[in-house]
């Protein structure tokens, strides 16, 4: 199969989803109304609530949701062959992710831009809110550990990326100064930043950094993991304008450049996919495709994390409710394209099937490195850049995404720890809270060995938690639709599917962790399993109540028997 054909089919499916299905959702299910006064106008404050041009907002939304996860997941999942991953990414984007992202945006817009946590309190109940906090904490914890391992593996497998990866921190710091201290023009700053980043890639390509066998008494993998957590801890404590903000910005720009390079190369080189459509001879120890595929590829098919971005931030900036179709659904399409690019790079970038099988020698082997090397070969064929340089570009891109997610996640987790401290009546200072987060993250990463292989064992668990969060969001949307007396079947089918596969995957993994005697992950698995069943129970109760009760069609508040419409106070 030619990869160009696959790319065209995939893009056509997603675009059809956008032009046909999302229109149907907008008209019949969510009934988006361009006359509706969005929170951005109603509560405009110049800070959170700012009506924003839909293209700019889409840019934000897309760059916040797309990162390393839609690369890692598909690159691991192609071990079962390209067809299952391809189908799950395309169908998932069209019927799951697009619907979910657009729906969470709509739900939040109809509720004064409140976050999903608040909405779960309102539509599912007080316990729903606590549940939400638990799930989010687990998600952040796992993403930090998994990404530390992903970055470490890349830094070791692609030593040429070491200089650009760490140099990018300096570039971002200088950009922050250029903008806030020297008040330079942003367009100029952007050009300088991108040129500096790519110069670093050229330098790194010439001077690979391979760590010695033992550095400060640690193996290279251990050293990188410890350094990464130290970095993430420090970065999350700095004022955001110094590092995080310019880093996010440059990464956003870099995301568009990277996607452009990848798809242009596929277009020019149109390499043949050497991997089998369905891999009959999976390596020993590979878990069964059903249900593990559906949790290995989380971002790129459906991801609960998007709901947090949609509800927390994007919903407060939506100019018109109808823009939600472009921002939410097309944001998911953008991420689907990234996942599709990862699938193509990891399956078509090799000369022969034997080469490919050598890379995918075991489950969790290959992965991002396969994406980097395969993608490097495609970029080489398409754009004529040397193979090494192409691989360095892609490795740097993947590491930068993962690292930005890591420092942001450490920062967010710090807030969760501080909030938990407040509930217990203890004031936790910033540094102490960050220390707690970093220590727990390091412990989880090293839980299965000093080389940090624990990090990638977590990946399917991360996917499961992400799906769990998505089910919670879908349940909220379904309850809203039921309260408005609309048909929720297009939400319920994906909801049930996602719930079933994630619970099934948890049970399967429970067995794996038991045989591996990995008690920490076993414990985590049990916690997530309990949370999943809890979500299912609460969602069912809330939906039953919503189906039976009478609600005000405007505010969704319960209409008490005997009370006239509009007499019920808004109870938030």
């Amino acid at each position, binding site marked *: 199969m030619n990869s160009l054909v696959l790319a065209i089919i995939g893009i056509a499916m997603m675009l059809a989803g956008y032009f046909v299905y999302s229109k149907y959702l907008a008209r019949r299910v969510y009934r988006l109304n361009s006359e509706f006064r969005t929170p951005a106008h109603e509560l405009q404050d110049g*800070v*959170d609530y*700012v009506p*924003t*041009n839909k*293209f*700019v907002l889409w*840019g*934000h939304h897309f760059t*916040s949701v797309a990162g390393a996860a839609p690369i890692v997941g598909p690159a691991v999942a192609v071990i079962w062959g390209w067809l299952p991953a391809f189908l799950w990414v395309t169908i998932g984007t069209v019927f799951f992710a697009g619907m979910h992202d657009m729906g969470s945006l709509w739900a939040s817009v109809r509720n004064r831009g409140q976050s999903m946590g608040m909405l779960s309190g309102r539509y599912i109940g007080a316990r729903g809110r606590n549940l939400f906090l638990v799930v989010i904490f687990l998600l952040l914890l796992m993403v930090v550990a998994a990404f530390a391992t992903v970055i470490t593996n890349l830094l070791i497998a692609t030593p040429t990326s070491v200089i650009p990866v760490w140099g990018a921190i300096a570039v971002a710091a200088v950009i922050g100064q250029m*903008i806030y201290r020297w008040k330079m*023009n*942003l*367009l100029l700053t*952007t050009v300088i930043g991108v040129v500096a980043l790519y110069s670093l890639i050229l330098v790194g390509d010439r001077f690979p950094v391979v760590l010695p066998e033992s550095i400060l008494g640690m193996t290279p993998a251990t050293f990188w993991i410890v350094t990464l957590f130290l970095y993430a801890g420090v970065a999350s404590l700095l*004022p*955001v*304008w110094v590092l*995080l*903000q310019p880093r*996010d*910005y440059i990464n*956003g720009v870099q995301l568009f450049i990277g996607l452009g390079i990848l798809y242009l190369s596929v277009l020019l080189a149109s390499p043949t996919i050497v991997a089998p459509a369905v891999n009959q001879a999976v390596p020993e120890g590979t878990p069964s495709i059903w249900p593990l595929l559906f949790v290995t590829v989380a971002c790129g098919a459906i991801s609960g994390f998007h709901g947090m971005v949609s509800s927390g*931030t994007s919903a407060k*900036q939506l100019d018109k409710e109808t823009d939600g179709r472009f921002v939410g659904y097309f944001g998911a399409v953008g991420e689907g394209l990234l996942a599709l690019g990862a699938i193509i790079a990891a399956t078509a970038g090799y000369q022969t099937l034997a080469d490919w099988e050598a890379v995918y020698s075991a489950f969790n082997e290959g992965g991002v490195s396969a994406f980097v090397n395969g993608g490097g070969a495609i970029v080489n064929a398409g754009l004529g850049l040397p193979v090494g340089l192409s691989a360095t570009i892609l490795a740097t891109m993947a590491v930068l995404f993962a690292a930005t997610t890591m420092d942001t996640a450490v920062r967010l987790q710090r807030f969760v720890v501080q909030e938990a401290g407040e509930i217990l009546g203890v004031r936790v200072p910033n540094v102490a809270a960050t220390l707690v987060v970093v220590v727990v993250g390091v412990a989880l990463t090293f839980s299965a060995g000093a080389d940090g292989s624990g990090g990638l064992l977590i990946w399917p668990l991360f996917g499961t938690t992400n799906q769990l969060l998505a089910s919670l969001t879908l349940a909220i949307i379904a309850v809203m639709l039921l309260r408005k007396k609309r048909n929720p079947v297009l939400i319920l089918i994906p909801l049930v599917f996602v719930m079933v596969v994630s619970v099934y995957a948890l049970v399967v993994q429970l067995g794996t962790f038991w045989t591996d005697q990995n008690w920490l992950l076993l414990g985590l698995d049990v916690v997530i399993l309990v949370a999943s069943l809890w979500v299912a129970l609460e969602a069912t109760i809330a939906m039953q109540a919503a189906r039976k009760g009478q609600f005000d069609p405007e505010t969704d508040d319960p209409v008490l028997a005997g009370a006239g419409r509009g007499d019920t106070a808004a109870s938030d």
Partner: protein
Amino acid sequence: MTRRTTVADGMRSLSAGLREFYEAPYRRTLSRARRDEDDLFTVVVLAEALGVPNPASYYTVELLPLVAERVHEWHTRMGMERSPLDSVSCC
């Protein structure tokens, strides 16, 4: 009109879009940090009025009128229903 103005307009809107892209995600964090700093400043200026000896009061007293307007917003945010100051009564 001329082509040059269209190009200039295009550049300007591109610049504005980029700036929005740069600033929007952190607008809340930055404005909160700024508010925290302003709160600290308010407390320093109001120190004498709150009964805390302030060696720099000779200088800060000049700034009192500047923070006076903010007192109401400040004390409500700090969880005090009424103004803690005898001199400034806002509600």
